[in-house]
């Protein structure tokens, strides 16, 4: 056979295992004589005759035969016979159908051998009746007690794992106590169907024929013990039985299994540990306990698997009935060593165990029919029917609130929420509109007023930087090359045109040759625009200038231009539009220019502080070598950056004018009119409107903030 079934739990195990992998029960029983442990019993040498008619042989015998053959082939001891309670036809029969059936069944060799060689002899002490020869393995174990003492590893469970048919050996020794246990049903049936002569003819060992109910343990067949009460987990429960999963299990549960009862906690507390369970749990039981436990076990009781009769055999009916009607088997004469193994004190122990009759009876395994057996699993684990819970949940109010909240969150998760409608005009837009309206109105009104209402800056109080600027510009010679850099953005042209207009006009009036450059891409166009405005204002056709265009590379390009202007900006933009136009570099004013210091004056027009610094840092060192001035016209926002360069020693910036106010001051100083003067009233009115708006807005903001902070502090006090 390919697998071996555990006698305790009934689960399949590999054939070579000695201990069940699931419940740790011993599968292969230990042989008392250690020297002969590995020697399988020679069925030919068996002294137990077996006389069973072929037609009356139950299936389990075939199973036994197969087991023994397999064990003999593998050199192993024959294991416990299969204790599958639901086995109505053993797998072996299915595998070997030719060996199944009454006609084709063969008596196990050991069994057959026992029957052939057996001769009815007088029972000898310690020997089974009818035994002609004691099997070697049996003979070597004449002194089991001594050997037990010498072999402490043999546990009582292992001893008890021996087939209970061994208990037939006790028939030669009168049991001192107790009435012999009733014969198991299956055995009674067999005996009924097997005539005594047939048994003897076939050589059944006496011990087999000596199975009597009197030799069985008391209480072997307790009835009415619910499997559910069993604490052995592998035992089927009532529920499973009712469910039909193991319907036949209970019916076919061997009695000796049924007799196996878990020990109660009280019994355990008293130190009474059924030996079988103890042996199942541990391999290191002390020898004394093993001996005692072994003595407890009543080997006279037959295992229940003996009672497993196939449905076919039951259907025949006559044989089981015939078996039952047969007289009881003659008790065999047990050898001394076997007698010693007999748990003669089982009845006494059972009588002393209190409430044992109340404990459930084991229904499976080698302890079937016994009560008080320890469960194979720790008693702390109580397997019971799981409690059934009510389908209705008990939800507290807090949990319900949480559930509602979660449901609300989940429901809104996928749903698209409408975006909050933005007001067409918000308060922010209203404020901006009000500011823009006030400014616009103020400036327009000021522009529309014919007479100026705001006085120009007093020349006596003009800033020194503007005066220095004016002085430098007035010192420019006629036709002197003046470099003018238009480095401001078109957006600032409103301020810069007004601030620099008078300066450019002054330069034009001086007759200087303007060289227009820019480090901004739109600078050349701004330069052209400025010249156009001058021409328009003075009704001139000013042509003494050269627009050298854009200087790429920012300050890097400026540094290159400063060192060599002709190389950095070789093209006059006028020649691009009009090829006939003479290039500025050809003009006499620029013919001698080799670097920036050759210019009489450098004027930088910028609104950006960084551009102003760049010109100062890149160009002034070269100008300083030839003591040439650098002047600036900047936006009002750049004054703070440029001023330190004006106030340094030596002055890096000879003079500067900042913003429209600086332009107006310059115009006032030189006595010319310009855009600054035209914008002065509007500029002043706009400034006043700005001041009023800032003042009022800041006061309102301050009030709002203080009110809100007061409210919040009040709210905190209330809390």
């Amino acid at each position: 056979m390919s697998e071996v079934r555990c006698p305790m739990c009934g689960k399949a195990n590999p054939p070579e295992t000695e201990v069940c992998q699931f419940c740790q029960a011993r599968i292969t029983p230990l042989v008392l004589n250690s020297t002969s442990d590995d020697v399988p019993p020679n069925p030919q040498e068996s002294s137990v005759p077996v006389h069973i008619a072929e037609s009356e042989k139950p299936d389990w015998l075939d199973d036994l035969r197969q087991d023994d053959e397999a064990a003999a082939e593998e050199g192993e001891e024959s294991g416990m016979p299969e204790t599958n309670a639901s086995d109505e036809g053993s797998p072996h029969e299915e595998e070997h159908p030719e060996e199944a059936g009454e006609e084709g069944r063969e008596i196990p060799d050991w069994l057959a051998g026992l029957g052939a060689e057996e001769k009815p002899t007088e029972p000898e002490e310690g020997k089974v009746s009818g035994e002609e020869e004691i099997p070697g393995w049996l003979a070597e174990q004449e002194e089991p007690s001594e050997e037990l003492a010498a072999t402490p590893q043999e546990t009582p469970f292992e001893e008890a794992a021996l087939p209970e048919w061994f208990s037939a050996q006790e028939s030669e020794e009168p049991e001192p106590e107790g009435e012999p246990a009733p014969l198991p049903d299956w055995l009674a049936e067999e005996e009924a169907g097997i005539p005594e002569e047939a048994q003897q003819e076939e050589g059944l060992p006496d011990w087999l024929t000596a199975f009597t109910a009197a030799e069985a343990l008391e209480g072997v067949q307790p009835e009415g013990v619910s499997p559910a009460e069993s604490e052995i987990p592998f035992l089927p429960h009532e529920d499973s039985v009712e469910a039909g999963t193991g319907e036949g299990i209970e019916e076919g549960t061997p009695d000796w299994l049924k007799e196996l009862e878990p020990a109660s906690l009280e019994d355990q507390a008293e130190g009474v540990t059924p030996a079988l369970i103890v042996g199942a749990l541990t391999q290191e039981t002390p020898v004394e306990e093993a001996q005692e436990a072994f003595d407890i076990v009543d080997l006279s009781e037959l295992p229940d698997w003996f009672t497993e009769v196939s449905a076919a055999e039951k259907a025949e009916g006559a044989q089981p009935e015939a078996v039952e009607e047969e007289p009881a088997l003659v008790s065999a004469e047990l050898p001394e060593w076997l007698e010693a193994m007999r748990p003669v004190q089982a009845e006494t122990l059972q009588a002393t165990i209190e409430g044992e009759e109340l404990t459930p009876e084991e229904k499976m395994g080698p302890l079937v029919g016994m009560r008080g057996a320890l469960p194979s699993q720790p008693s702390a684990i109580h397997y019971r029917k799981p409690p059934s819970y009510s389908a209705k949940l008990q939800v507290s109010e807090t949990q319900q609130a949480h559930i509602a909240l979660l449901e609300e969150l989940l429901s809104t998760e996928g749903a698209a929420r409408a975006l909050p409608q933005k007001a067409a005009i918000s308060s922010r837009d209203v404020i901006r509109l009000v500011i823009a309206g006030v400014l616009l109105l103020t400036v327009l009104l000021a522009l529309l007023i014919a007479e100026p209402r705001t006085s120009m800056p007093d020349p006596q109080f003009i800033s020194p930087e503007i005066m220095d600027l004016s002085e430098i510009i007035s010192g420019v010679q006629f036709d002197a090359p003046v470099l003018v850099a238009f480095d401001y953005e078109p957006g600032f042209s409103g301020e810069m045109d007004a601030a620099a207009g008078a300066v450019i006009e002054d330069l034009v009036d001086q007759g200087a040759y303007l060289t227009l450059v820019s480090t901004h891409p739109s600078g050349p166009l701004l330069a052209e625009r400025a010249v156009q405005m001058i021409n328009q204002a003075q009704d001139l056709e000013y042509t003494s200038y050269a627009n050298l265009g854009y200087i790429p590379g920012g300050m890097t390009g400026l540094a290159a231009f400063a060192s060599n202007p002709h190389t950095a900006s070789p093209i006059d933009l006028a020649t691009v539009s009009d090829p006939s136009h003479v290039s500025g570099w050809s003009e006499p004013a620029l013919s001698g220019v080799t670097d920036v210091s050759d210019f009489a004056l450098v004027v930088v027009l910028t609104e950006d502080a960084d551009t102003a610094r760049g010109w100062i840092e890149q160009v002034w060192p070269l100008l300083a070598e030839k003591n040439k001035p650098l002047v600036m016209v900047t936006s009002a926002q750049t004054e703070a950056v440029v001023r330190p360069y004006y106030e340094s020693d030596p002055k890096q910036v000879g003079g500067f004018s900042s913003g429209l106010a600086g332009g107006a001051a310059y115009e006032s100083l030189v006595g010319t009119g310009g855009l600054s003067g035209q914008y002065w009233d509007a500029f002043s009115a706009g400034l006043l409107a700005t001041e009023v708006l800032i003042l009022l807005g800041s006061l309102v903001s301050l009030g709002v903030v203080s009110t809100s902070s007061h409210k919040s502090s009040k709210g905190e006090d209330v809390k």
Partner: protein
Amino acid sequence: MRTPLSAAVAIIVGLLILAGYFFPFGPLLSLKNTLIQWAMILAGFALLVGVVNLIKVHWIKIRKRSPGSIYSLILIISLAVTIVVAGYFGPVASSSLWIFNNVQVPVETSLLALLSVLLIYVVVRLLRRRPDSISILFIATVFLVLLGTAPLFFIGEVRVLTVIRNFIVQVPAVAGARGILLGVALGAIATGIRILTGADRPYGG
């Protein structure tokens, strides 16, 4: 270009120009000038790259019909027209000047005018957003400088206000500007050192 090679080129060129700036002698000076001229040419091409990038971005917007793609279309048309006109007639021709004077200048000056409205608005809102003493000092400084910048309409020049304004602009403002510029300069030096040591490599990954 692989990162180690680009980093090596960046570091070597940076060190050469730095050395040429501090030691303007012989071959180092000429090498520095050459490299600076190359940088100018690359800067000019960078302007061209910017124009190309601008066209590409707005072309994609037009193709995808994104919101505001009509303005992208106007931009590309305006760009094309300006390139054609300035390229054909010249950058300082009357037609080019007409586009500049009548389109670019008004648009940018309008934005600057809008700037004035927004600056007034943010100053007014400053106290609501940051109600602290620094904000009050900020607003007070703005107020005083504006008062002293020009004579008050209908009132005329108030000398005291002009003196206060000049003091604020010439002393604390200049000092503050100097301090900020010093810090910015140190930051620029630190950034340059990180690039020269290869710790920062914004080029080539």
